[in-house]
């Protein structure tokens, strides 16, 4: 008993001596200061003022591209300035599925999470139901859980040098199912190619300063319109900025001050090669494969929005946008109404 007491005394004495060392005192002081700093930072973060930014009433990236893009870029500017923003979509009168992906991208950008963002849901009952059951809330911090509806699904991916083939296939399960109900064994190969090439291209469209570019894939089953609506988005640098003909655009811009609109025709004709140097001779077929899907009769809408251009691939027409979209947005609709059912049956 006496022996163990002596041991305890020894440990205690050693510890007391340790505490008198300069390095110990210095470490304790630094930690105290850091704790104070962290507390003040947290206090400032909790007390930050949010700017209420009201969304356009027609909340559709596809139909109201210019207005939504302006709104989107304004948010990005606020975030860049370190200003917290509240996205107010309470008064919107129209909401399309493509907006879900765009809103998620805004919320999930690294800088947005750092600065702080919050938002609300639409007041309109129908739009609110669509928004709450979209899976949006599974990807942001929110109170309570919102049940995701069967008629839509959302995937988040990251370039991280990986192409998620299985995910692309899963995203097409609903498509197969819907056509099967109409007694059509639908060949999803072209759409699988489209989605996996879109994922693969995300890496090429990534900013060289960014380590990873997140992408989002979302489908929405519109039973009223008998359509499956797919949206794919990445916030890289966009197709036209990443393509290897950027020198061509820059030269033309210097002389004639024209934008990427000049390049739309070349893009649609597949005269675009990868900006990658490795295997350059055999690269560049992915974009052609993506665009070829527009020829399918069941694809009734096919839109690409990238940089300052909106391209309707179905009618082979490009439109110049009022502001720049730093990223690539691919949207297509698969129709399975009676008219298209016959066309698809003939085609496959």
């Amino acid at each position, binding site marked *: 008993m006496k022996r163990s007491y002596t041991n305890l005394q020894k440990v205690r004495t050693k510890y007391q001596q340790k505490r008198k060392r300069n390095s110990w005192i210095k470490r304790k002081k630094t930690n105290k200061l850091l704790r104070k700093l962290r507390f003040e930072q947290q206090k400032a973060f909790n007390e930050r003022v949010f700017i209420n930014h009201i969304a356009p009433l027609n909340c559709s990236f596809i139909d109201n591209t210019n207005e939504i893009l302006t709104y989107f870029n304004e948010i990005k500017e606020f975030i860049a300035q370190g200003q917290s923003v509240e996205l107010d979509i309470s008064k919107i009168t129209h909401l399309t599925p493509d907006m879900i992906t765009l809103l998620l991208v805004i919320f999930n950008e690294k800088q947005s999470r750092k600065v702080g963002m919050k938002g609300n849901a639409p007041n309109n009952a129908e739009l609110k139901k669509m928004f709450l059951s979209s899976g949006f809330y599974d990807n942001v911090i929110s109170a309570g859980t919102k049940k995701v509806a069967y008629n839509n699904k959302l995937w988040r991916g990251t370039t991280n*040098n*990986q*192409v*998620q*083939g*299985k995910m*692309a*296939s899963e995203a097409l399960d609903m498509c197969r199912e819907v056509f099967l109900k109409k007694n059509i064994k639908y*060949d*999803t*190969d*072209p*759409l*699988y*190619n489209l989605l*996996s*090439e879109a*994922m*693969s291209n995300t*890496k090429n469209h990534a900013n060289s300063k960014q380590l990873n570019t997140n992408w989002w894939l979302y489908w929405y089953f519109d039973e009223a319109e008998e359509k499956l609506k797919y949206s794919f988005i990445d916030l890289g640098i966009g197709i036209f900025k990443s393509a290897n003909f950027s020198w061509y655009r820059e030269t033309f811009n210097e002389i004639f001050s024209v934008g990427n609109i000049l390049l739309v025709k070349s893009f649609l004709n*597949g*005269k*675009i*090669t990868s900006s990658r140097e490795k*295997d350059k*001779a*055999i*690269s*560049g*077929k*992915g974009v*052609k*494969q993506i665009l070829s899907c527009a020829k399918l009769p069941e694809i009734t809408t096919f839109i690409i929005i990238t940089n300052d251009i909106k391209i309707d691939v179905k009618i082979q027409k490009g439109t110049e946008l009022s502001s720049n979209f730093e990223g690539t947005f691919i949207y297509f609709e698969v129709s399975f109404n009676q008219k298209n059912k016959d066309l698809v049956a003939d085609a496959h």
Partner: protein
Amino acid sequence: MLTNNFIKNTMDIKYRINVAKDFSAYPAGRYKSEGDTSGEAFLLDNLIGNLFAAIISNTSLEIDLTGMNGYPSSFISGSFGKITNELGKVIGIKEASKAIKKHIVLKCDDSAVRKQAVMDEIDNPITKTK
């Protein structure tokens, strides 16, 4: 079964690859760094060894594309296009295509387009931009 109309291959089939079963039903991406189901991974892990073995033994390699989910261009270019192009650098693209087609038999029970896409890649691995 859809017959292969592109190759008049009368050699014995000694080697077989079922892409969906032996490799992956979800082919995607060009480089191995893009995932284990990429074209490069297929080329290095399955295609190159079997194809060379078929060439050396003067037999055929049957590649079954049945059950695959699509045929992304980055995948077929990273595998079939890559091997044709690399061989083409030595003996010329036409000769390379001919040599590869001589020893490959493509099979696909659920899509004729998939087979066509692979054949097109072997015939023309170089991207035409003009």
